[in-house]
């Protein structure tokens, strides 16, 4: 039995140069990067829509590079979802089963409709569905034929922020439940962080796993405005100076800063430095040329990201964490 659900080796296609990535069976991989980086090209090459110039694609251990998309058993959710506008929800979901001449189509479709709680939509046409409903139909259509791999190209981009978060969480739950190897493209770091088992950062057609975008979100227990658009944010056991204009002390705020906005050192800075707090390393994980750290400070866990060469210096020691003032964003907490 093959260990990997997806393996891409030395892939050259369109803008992509020498792409290597692998996903274990049932893992959710996120391809993260700016627009035009080659994210969609990568999905197209894996699905077979695009023929690569070079390199191999293996799905569940089987080399599919020369197999046309219709015989790869891949489900692909496009950015615009690509529902068939002329077919009802039921017919949309039944489509992959019909073309594969599967049996018990009605039962299978009804099962997944029920599972995704969209049974009441079965006779509706996509043109009359809301964004969230369309999303669920697209997911149902992708899952119904039991694909070996699920590819998703920014499927939540058309939704508003709140809906996006809700659907995303729901989606991750469904995917995990079905244990389908998934490769998911996004340019939203929050989305990447929340969804991924493993993250591939892609830039100018190359995978660069040296950037970290894990976001720390800490609830501020008390906020005291200072002059010049600053405030002291209290986190019970430590405080940070944060950039915020006239915060309302009666409202709840959250401080957000990425793992990249943290500097970790084994010794106290020789000169007094803003936002220096003491902490302990709870866990670490290698990610390309970087180390991702989970740091405990007071009763809060903070994620940090340091270059590999610094690891030896701080390994096993208590550390000083410096949170870059400019990297902090203060947001009102939304319920």
């Amino acid at each position, binding site marked *: 039995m093959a260990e990997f659900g997806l393996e891409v080796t030395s892939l050259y296609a369109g803008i992509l140069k020498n792409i290597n990535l692998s996903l274990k069976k049932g893992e959710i991989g996120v391809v993260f990067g700016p627009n035009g980086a080659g994210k969609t090209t990568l999905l*197209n090459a894996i*699905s*077979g*829509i695009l023929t690569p110039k070079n390199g191999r694609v293996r799905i569940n251990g089987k080399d599919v590079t020369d197999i*046309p*998309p*219709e*015989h*790869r*058993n*891949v*489900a*692909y959710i*496009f*950015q*615009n979802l*690509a*529902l*068939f*506008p*002329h*077919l*009802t929800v039921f017919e949309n979901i039944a*489509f*992959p089963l019909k*073309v*594969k001449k599967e049996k018990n189509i009605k039962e299978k479709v009804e099962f997944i409709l029920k599972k995704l709680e969209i049974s009441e939509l079965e*006779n*509706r*046409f996509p*043109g*009359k569905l809301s964004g969230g409903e369309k999303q669920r139909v697209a997911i149902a*259509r992708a899952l119904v*034929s039991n694909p070996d791999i699920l590819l998703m190209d920014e499927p939540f981009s058309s939704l508003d922020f709140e809906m996006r978060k809700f659907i995303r969480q729901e989606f991750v739950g469904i995917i995990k439940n079905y244990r389908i190897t998934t490769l998911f493209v996004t340019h939203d770091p929050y989305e990447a962080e929340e969804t991924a088992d493993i993250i591939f950062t892609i830039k100018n057609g190359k995978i660069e796993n040296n950037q970290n975008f894990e976001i720390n979100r800490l609830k501020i227990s008390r906020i005291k405005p200072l002059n010049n658009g600053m405030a002291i944010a209290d986190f019970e056991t430590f405080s940070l100076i944060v950039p915020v204009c006239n915060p309302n002390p009666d409202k709840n705020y959250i401080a957000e800063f990425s793992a990249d906005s943290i500097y970790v050192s084994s010794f106290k800075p020789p000169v007094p430095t803003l936002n220096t707090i003491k902490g302990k390393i709870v866990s670490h994980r290698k990610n390309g040329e970087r180390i991702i750290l989970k740091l405990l400070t007071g009763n809060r866990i903070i994620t940090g990201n340091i270059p590999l060469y610094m690891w030896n210096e701080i390994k096993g020691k208590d550390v000083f964490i410096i949170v870059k003032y400019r990297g902090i964003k203060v947001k009102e907490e939304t319920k």
Partner: protein
Amino acid sequence: MGRKIKTLIPVFLFFAVWETVARLPSVPHYLFPPFSKVIIKLLEEIAKGDLVKNTFITLYRVGIGFFAGTITGIVLGLASGISEKLNETISPIVALLYPIPSIGWIPVLMVWFGISDAVPIIAIFICSFFPIYMNAVRGVKSVDSNVINAARTMGANKLTLIKNVILPLSMPNIFTGLKIESGMSLRTGVVAEMLAIPSGLGYMLMKGESLIDVKLMFAVLLSIALISVIIDFGVKFLEKKVLIWQNSASK
């Protein structure tokens, strides 16, 4: 229902004005007969069987020419929409021939086929083929490539893709062509009959002219108008049925 009656009011008004103007003392009835007399003539011609017979002859020619033109236009249009090579071969020829009015072919067809049903049928074929072909090509090109790719990744082969995705999604464009050309086909058929053949509604018009029977001519024109309205209604009805997904919330 109220809306339908509202649409009919101007039509009734038009007939009323026609009746009134024709009944003015200075207007001779043999040149401009009142609406009521045209209706009486129409009923007489129906009773005689002449009008019914010639209407069926015209409809038969229009039916065959329009059906053949439509099917050929859709098939070739879909093929050209899918295959860029075929499109590059056919489209320049279509661009060259399309501007020629279909009735312009009638003299040539008369020389080629003589007095034969082939003349109006081919003229109608030409009239319906080009716009439907062009709309079908446009229809295929307008199908979202993601939808096609989605169907492919789901396992659809080329034939399934054409039958279940490309053709249905091209239908809105094809119907645009059909709506325009269904009426145009009838007009082309009548003109061909006027020029080339001693049967059909066109021939009846010419007969009316040679007998200076203006009532007969008006009765035939009224029939043509009525048939046009029915054809138009039929195509729109069909469109509503076929493109149910564009208008309805559900099936």
